């Protein structure tokens, strides 16, 4: 049988292996963050991915670069879940509040632990900080767009603070405090967030 493999196949093979190993590393980092185990070292990432430290070093200079890449990859992988679906025309304030809370809870359940672990590193790493803040800015933009009809009913000077207040209510850190420290269940959070958002959207 003739060996038909050549330089092209070799390159393809290396490329596939590189992609596979990078995916293993990113999965390992995401699992690390999602488990709330804190910020991983490259050695811990290598152990979890089942790769040698040398292999991991080939793809990422340090833990910060791996975590930043994992944050971006997580956002890409869950782009659909992290994109607020449009509401049909004629939606009311109450519809928008329910829509937002359903979305916010889905996003928190999906990624709050990992996001908080990455955020904990953000003040020491501009690479991680930038990846985290990009995701947070997208979420905030979606909130601003959704509640635009309600915010535009307020005096212009009051809008930034009103949006900020809404944002604080369903912030990942708020979710974490309510669920982890105060042990509220998801239904209770949903009920209370609904009440809070509706109250905050009332004109003063």
């Amino acid at each position, binding site marked *: 049988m003739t060996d038909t493999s050549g330089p092209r196949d070799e390159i393809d093979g290396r490329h596939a292996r590189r992609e596979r190993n990078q995916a293993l590393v990113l999965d390992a980092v995401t699992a690390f963050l999602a488990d709330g185990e*804190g*910020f991983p070292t490259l050695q811990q990432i290598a152990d979890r991915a089942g790769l040698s430290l040398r292999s991991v070093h080939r793809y990422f200079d340090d833990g910060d670069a791996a975590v930043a890449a994992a944050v971006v990859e997580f956002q890409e992988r869950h782009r659909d879940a992290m994109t607020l679906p449009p509401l049909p025309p004629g939606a*009311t304030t*109450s519809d928008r509040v329910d829509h937002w809370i359903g979305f916010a809870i889905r996003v928190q359940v999906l990624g709050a632990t990992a996001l908080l*672990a990455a*955020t*904990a*590193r953000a*003040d*020491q790493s501009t690479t991680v900080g930038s990846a985290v803040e990009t995701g*947070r800015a997208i979420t*905030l933009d979606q909130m601003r767009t959704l509640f635009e009809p309600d915010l535009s009913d307020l005096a212009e000077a009051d809008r*930034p*603070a009103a*949006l*900020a*207040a809404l*944002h*604080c*209510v369903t*912030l990942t*850190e*708020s979710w974490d*405090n*309510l669920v982890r*420290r*105060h042990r*509220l269940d998801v239904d*209770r959070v949903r*009920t*209370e967030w*609904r*009440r*809070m958002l*509706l*109250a*905050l959207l009332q004109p*003063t």
Partner: protein
Amino acid sequence: MIAAAVELSLEGNGIPLLQDIAERSGVSLRSLHRYFADGDAVLAEAYLSYVNNEPSPARVPTGLLVAPLAERVAWRVDERMDECLRTNAAFLALNTRARRSPRLQEIIEAHRQSQIEVVRRLFIPELARFDEPERAARVALAHTATMSESWDNLTRRHGLDDEQISATWTRTLLAALAPSGPAVP
């Protein structure tokens, strides 16, 4: 020594080594070892020195407890704003370090619990209107309203000034404690 530990921590050195703290503070490593087992222990003391001046349930003025809700909310907002202005950067930095330090975690959690007790004590009349589990939820919301992370979000991401933060926190606290109205359709 404590000031040096906080400085190093805020500079991004994580839990600083005793050697680094010794160099920064000009105290010999041997002297430092006499007082602290490791950098984690110095940070724990540093954190305690920060929070010692913050309100504990016992420090809520007794007369305030019978004041109208608006007055109690204003006191809480002023206290938290003052604390955040003084200590928030250090608090959030130490809080992130606590992920790797059970001792620091324990101290920070004790402080958070003390803050929750302040809320419970300050808003007894409003909380008494609710049965469990709603009462627990209202405590949780009132505590969450003025958390350090909220301050961080309002200042860093939203760029609000002190007056706007005060108004935002007041509004959020009042919403957290408001009687349950009829369900909004």
